[in-house]
């Protein structure tokens, strides 16, 4: 039963999506059902958010309680979760849901701090803490690229040397000063790099991978729909 029901659901859902793809949404229910099912996914996803909150609270509070190494970071995570979530859910005015209860405790002028609007606690935390931290993480990528490139581009053998030469040419071509340098030898070099390396070899390899991946995804979808592949349930 625990295996049959999910397999039947997977088959019916898969077939609805496949058949619906070939029908016009304006003329038939089958055409509209694809959008309908995707909305269900979003709704189910919304409900499961609570699972995420429960997981994050359980795992982090356990570490804080046991005072394991780095517990202070787990405490910061817990505080952050509630600091972002609670003020954003509080009513903005007295007339909102639960507004009369909240504003019998807090002065009504505090309304602008709640919700997710401009000037709210959520907005302040997002703009001045969350966004800069995300940007910092993203900016660190430049240093990681440098260290990875250093290892990848070492001329250990003929293939690695070819990779190194190609990478140097592409990097030179991508920056104005490098392009000017390449033009000292011939005005055609940037065009050749674009035509033969980027739009030639690079695109050909990428398309090969994309075609293989698309076929692989389609094959796996078929295996799941037909109930042959059950490993996504931990079975088989």
């Amino acid at each position: 039963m625990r295996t049959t029901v999910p397999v039947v659901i997977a088959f019916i859902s898969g077939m609805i999506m496949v058949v619906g793809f070939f029908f016009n949404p304006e003329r038939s229910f089958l055409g509209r059902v694809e959008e309908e099912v995707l909305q269900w996914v979003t709704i189910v996803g919304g409900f499961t958010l609570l699972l995420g909150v429960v997981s994050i609270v359980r795992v982090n509070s356990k570490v804080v309680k046991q005072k394991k190494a780095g517990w202070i970071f787990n405490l910061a995570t817990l505080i952050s979760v509630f600091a972002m979530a609670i003020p954003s859910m509080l009513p903005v005015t007295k007339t909102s849901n639960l507004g009369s209860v909240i504003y019998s405790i807090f002065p009504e002028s505090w309304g602008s701090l709640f919700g997710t609007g401009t000037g709210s606690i959520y907005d302040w935390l997002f703009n001045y803490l969350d966004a800069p931290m995300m940007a910092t993480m993203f900016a660190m990528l430049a240093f990681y690229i440098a260290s990875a490139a250093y290892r990848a581009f070492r001329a250990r053998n003929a293939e690695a040397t070819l990779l190194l030469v190609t990478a140097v040419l592409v990097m030179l071509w991508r920056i104005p000063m490098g392009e000017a340098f390449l033009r000292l030898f011939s005005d055609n070099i940037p065009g050749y790099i674009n035509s033969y390396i980027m739009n030639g070899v690079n695109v050909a390899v990428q398309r090969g991978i994309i075609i293989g991946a698309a076929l692989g995804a389609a094959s796996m979808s078929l295996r799941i729909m037909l109930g042959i592949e059950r490993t996504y349930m931990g079975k088989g």
Partner: protein
Amino acid sequence: MLTLSLPFHEVTSQMPAPLFRLERLPLLIFFLLFATVIILYIRWAKKGESLFIRKIAGLEAIEEAVGRATEMGKPVLFVPGIQELDDMQTIAAVSILGRVARITAQYETQIIVPVNYPLVLAASQEVIEQAYKEAGHDDSVNRDAVRYVAGEQMALAAAINGIITRERPAANILMGAFFAESLLIAETGYAAGSIQIAGTAEPEQLPFFIASCDYTLMGEELYAASSYLSREPVLLGGLKGLDFMKIFLVFLIIIGTVLMTIGAGDWLRSLLMAE
């Protein structure tokens, strides 16, 4: 006859849309052909015919990586990408997680699975529980092995880097859809000295994984992984069907290239074009 007095484009715009999307007919034909080939190969495999599947080094190394983690007494980190459960790469990653969890259950090694979507959390927990049960170790399942750590891409990367730095997993298995965070995670794993096996169908992220990881599964290998690891003839039959379709497509590409080069391929292009 009101319509006759209107210009042609207005007449056509007032006509009801056709029930069947004829422009997608080539895709339907391709889908039916694909499904037939896969089913035929699976039936062939069921009859007990021997099937040759090339070795995939990255998948062969999974057991070795878990074994290394067991010897060192350190955990295995498994990241099922950063996409929602409706992405095929995530489904493929969750399938591989089942196989990896079965090995960690046998070796009694800790596994850590950080995720950024609650649906992936629920599915991964279910898969791990089932894998431990099937391995006969259902009493040693740790429900906190799968952790929801963040909903944002870079917050997830920071959390995973924190886990790698603090818990020093001996093996990092990164499977699924990865984007800008791929290198942030893989380089941290490299610095921590973990054995790293990655797999994704995102072509832009493959060079990063190749540079930082010990083994990389490219594109279709990710989708083939669960069948490959199961060694079940029926699932391997599906992989052979996939190989057949690839040969068919390569054949079509060669014919198309020749026809387009001699200026006689427009009919083939319009036949294969689908909206």
